[in-house]
C-alpha cells in the first residue's frame, strides 16, 4: 500500500498529514520527505497521524529520527494522534514521553 501525504504551512509550522500504512515498506519515503522539508528550513514540523491505518516499530523509529533532525536544525516535531490503536504503541515503547501526542492540529501549532 502506498503512503500519501499532504503538506500545509500553518502559523510557522509545516503540517504533514499522513495517510495509509507506515511500515518498513513505506517509512523510507516519508523519512526522505521530512529530511527534504528540514533541509528547506521548514524544521518546525507537525506530523498528523490521524489518517494512519497501521504503524510498526520502523515507523516509530522514523518518527524518532525526524524529531532528532528537526531539533538539530533548531526546530521541533509534534505529533497529532487520537487513535488508541496507534497511541498505544507510543505508550508501550515509552515514546509518548519523548514526543507528546496532541489531539488536534490546532493544538499542535498553538504556542511556540
Amino acid at each position, binding site marked *: 500500500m502506498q503512503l500519501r501525504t499532504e503538506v500545509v504551512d500553518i502559523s510557522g509550522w509545516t503540517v504533514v498529514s499522513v495517510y495509509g500504512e507506515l511500515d*518498513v515498506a513505506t517509512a523510507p519515503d516519508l523519512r526522505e520527505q521530512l529530511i527534504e522539508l528540514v533541509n528547506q528550513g521548514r524544521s518546525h514540523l507537525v506530523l498528523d497521524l490521524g489518517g494512519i491505518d497501521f504503524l510498526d516499530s520502523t515507523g516509530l523509529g522514523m518518527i*524518532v529520527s525526524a524529531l532528532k533532525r528537526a531539533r538539530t536544525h533548531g526546530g521541533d516535531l509534534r505529533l497529532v494522534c487520537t487513535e488508541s490503536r496507534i497511541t498505544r504503541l507510543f505508550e508501550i515503547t515509552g515514546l509518548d514521553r519523548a514526543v507528546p501526542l496532541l489531539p488536534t492540529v490546532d493544538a499542535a501549532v498553538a504556542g511556540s
Partner: protein
Amino acid sequence: MAVVELEIPARPAYLSLVRLIVDAAVGSLAPGLSVARLDDLKIAVTEACSNAIEAHEAILADGPVVVRCVIDDHQVTVDIVDRGRGFDPDRVETLPAATDPRRLRHESGLGIPLMRTLTDEVAFSLDADGTKVSLTIYRPPS
C-alpha cells in the same frame, strides 16, 4: 486445528499482503478474538516478518519467508520462518528508560519488545538454516 500457510518473497512490499492474509485467516477461523487483539497480532507478525526480510537482505537472499497460522480452540500461533542469518534475541540491546534523554538515540530495537508486549507468548528458535519466530495469542473462552 486449522493451518493457513503463506510463502512470500523477502521484500517489504509483501508486508501489507501478510497482514491482509493474517487478518482474513485468523478473523474467520478464530471468531471471538477482539479486533484489538487481532491488531496486536498483525503488528507482531509485521515485526517478525520485517526482521526476517532484513535477515535475508543481509545475505542477499530473496527468500522465501514462510508465514504459518495455526489455529486451535485455545490459541492462535503464527510462525515466521526465514532462511537468513539468525540472531540472538537475548542479545538485543536494552533501551534506556523513556524519561532518559539517551532514549532518543535509539531508532531501532523496538520490534522485539513490541512482539513480547503485544502477544501472550513469543518463542525464537535458531538453527544453521535460519530463524523461526512463533507468536501466540490466547483465544477467549467461548
